[in-house]
């Protein structure tokens, strides 16, 4: 299932000869209104694609930063329904930026696959990443997403061999998210040298653009990844800005958006178009 906003954005990035910057933020972190302010500021700050996390009580693939962000989101009362309302509020002011929901399966199970897919599409969501729903378990959810023209975006990892990549690429669209390290989010940093060949393998297997994430914390690191991938994802470092702002008693949005600007600029400046 192709999704026009995601495909259009990657086509535009290709035409510009640069990688995209994907910003991950958590719904309701630190509050519904501030999360909306952050979301609305992301495109101007340089986010080409937005991943909006929906909180789950047991995020077992996340490191401490996103675990804490999920807890803040839950404390702010953000349910999956609330996340969809947030997505719709964002979409009302931005017709072009792809918006991907990212989280765990149980809230979606609880909501009901068909109802979720229909409501997400109506809210202007373009795709969904479900961390604990591997291809073997994904057909019923994929059916519901397909019927509503939403992409199911899959994760590929350092443990995915070529045979596994074929399975991962099945019924996926939009792009593939390459998790560059074996680990939880926001802790380890991948060896840059290992990322380029892995991205090539994933591109070949899927025929889709490849976004790379996990452990991207600095502009230098973002630029390194941008040279060898189609998009760079940063998440933990952004939600940590929310935590730092809360601790300092400052508004969160300016801190997060300043961090996004720095990372996005590094991604934009990473490649000289004629060399790619």
């Amino acid at each position: 299932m192709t999704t026009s906003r995601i495909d259009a954005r990657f086509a535009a990035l290709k035409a510009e000869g640069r990688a995209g910057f994907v910003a991950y933020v958590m719904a309701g972190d630190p509050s519904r209104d501030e999360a909306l302010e952050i979301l609305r500021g992301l495109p101007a700050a340089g986010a080409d694609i937005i991943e909006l996390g929906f909180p789950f009580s047991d995020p077992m693939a996340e490191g401490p930063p996103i675990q804490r962000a999920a807890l803040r989101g839950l404390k702010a009362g953000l349910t999956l329904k609330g996340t969809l309302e947030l997505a719709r509020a964002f979409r009302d002011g931005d017709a072009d930026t792809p918006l991907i929901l990212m989280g765990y399966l149980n809230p979606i199970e609880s909501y009901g696959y068909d109802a979720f897919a229909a409501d997400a599409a109506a809210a202007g969501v373009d795709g969904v990443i479900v961390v604990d729903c591997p291809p073997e378990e994904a057909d019923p959810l994929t059916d519901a997403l397909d019927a509503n023209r939403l992409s199911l975006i899959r994760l590929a990892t350092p443990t995915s061999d070529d045979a596994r990549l074929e399975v991962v690429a099945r019924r996926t669209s939009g792009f593939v998210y390459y998790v560059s390290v074996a680990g939880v989010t926001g802790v380890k940093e991948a060896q840059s040298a290992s990322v380029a060949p892995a991205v090539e393998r994933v591109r070949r297997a899927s025929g889709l653009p490849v976004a790379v994430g996990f452990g991207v914390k600095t502009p230098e690191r973002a630029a390194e990844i941008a040279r060898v991938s189609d998009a760079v994802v940063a998440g933990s470092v952004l939600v940590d800005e929310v935590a730092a702002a809360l601790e300092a008693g400052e508004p969160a949005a300016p801190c997060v958006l300043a961090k996004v600007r720095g990372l996005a600029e590094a991604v934009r400046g990473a490649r000289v178009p004629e060399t790619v």
Partner: protein
Amino acid sequence: MNAIIPNQYAMPDADGRFGPYGGRFVAETLMPLVLELNQAYEATKGDPSFQAELDDFLTHYVGRPSPLYLAERLTAHHGGANIWFKRDELNHTGAHKINNCMGQILLAMRMGKKRIIAETGAGQHGVATATVCARFGLQCVVYMGAADVERQSPNVFRMKLLGAEVIPVTSGRGTLKDAMNEALRDWVTNVADTYYLIGTAAGPHPYPAMVRDFQSVIGRETKAQMQARRGKLPDAVVAAIGGGSNAIGLFHPFIEDAGVRLIGVEAAGRGLEGPDHAASLQGGRPGVLHGNRTYLLQDEDGQILEGHSISAGLDYPGIGPEHAWLKDIGRAEYRAATDVEALEHFQLCSKLEGIIPALEPSHALARIGEIAAEVGQGGDVVLNMCGRGDKDIFAVAKHLGVEL
């Protein structure tokens, strides 16, 4: 739909499903590991040399078979069917957990793994894992909720004596669920050398089937012992349920024996009507957590709720997927016992039988009187005494207002 056709019960299917339950809901990083484990287990379980090695350790190290004991005074007290205890509390390390750990550690070694991780609630699975790791010289890391570290300090000390590293988990409410999250985070980080030794018949396929198979020694022995002692099958078999491994181990060999009632007892905590219990089957609904679809304690948004039980070993918001299936098809019955009832029967069993039970089987003991009455005099009910109460005496003393 209660009909289980003899020799037809072959759950789970190749994808690890028990009807709609089970499956493999893990992060993609773990999928190759889970598939590798399944392959290794399939290749190993039918290997006679593996079974011979396991049987030898079960006999000479664990102390199997465990006795089947007629609890005469408890039987007389309740005045119904004969009450038998399957004495799995007499196993090395004092609970049924070692049955599974011995099986999995032999598999882990065949897979060439050097580092073992585990989650633990009451600490019994942590102790059993630390024990087999010590026996075979493997590195052992046990994740334990910080609250459980507090309430089960003797087991924490035991694990350390056995050479394990015990990592207190402070996320969530610091109980078994959070320990399992942290163990999964460790596994996803240490994919090359680490074996995750799950302690209950839950998690991604093949764990629910594999743990059940290793625990089924309980039910197989019970069947043979009851035949030898009474020349018949029991009328009912009864076990406490947290994740459900001791219960499924007892139930499984009887699933196709339609005349044998299978009865699980969940932890009702402070009562099923409020939020403070751990009865996933009776107070929860289906969802996905920790690698499988099963009954879960959860709110309307699908957020997982913290279970509560006086017993740290039952304090888990989920349940093994095979129990979910057995409940739905009506093959097994599920009841519950409160903290207060468990405490009462903990004391009753100690006084009448000279056996101090763990708080987990004390929940089953709380229902055994009524089950014995339903079956009636002359019948036979078997209760799995899945753990001994030494680890609980401090917690029980506290609840009884006694200072040790």
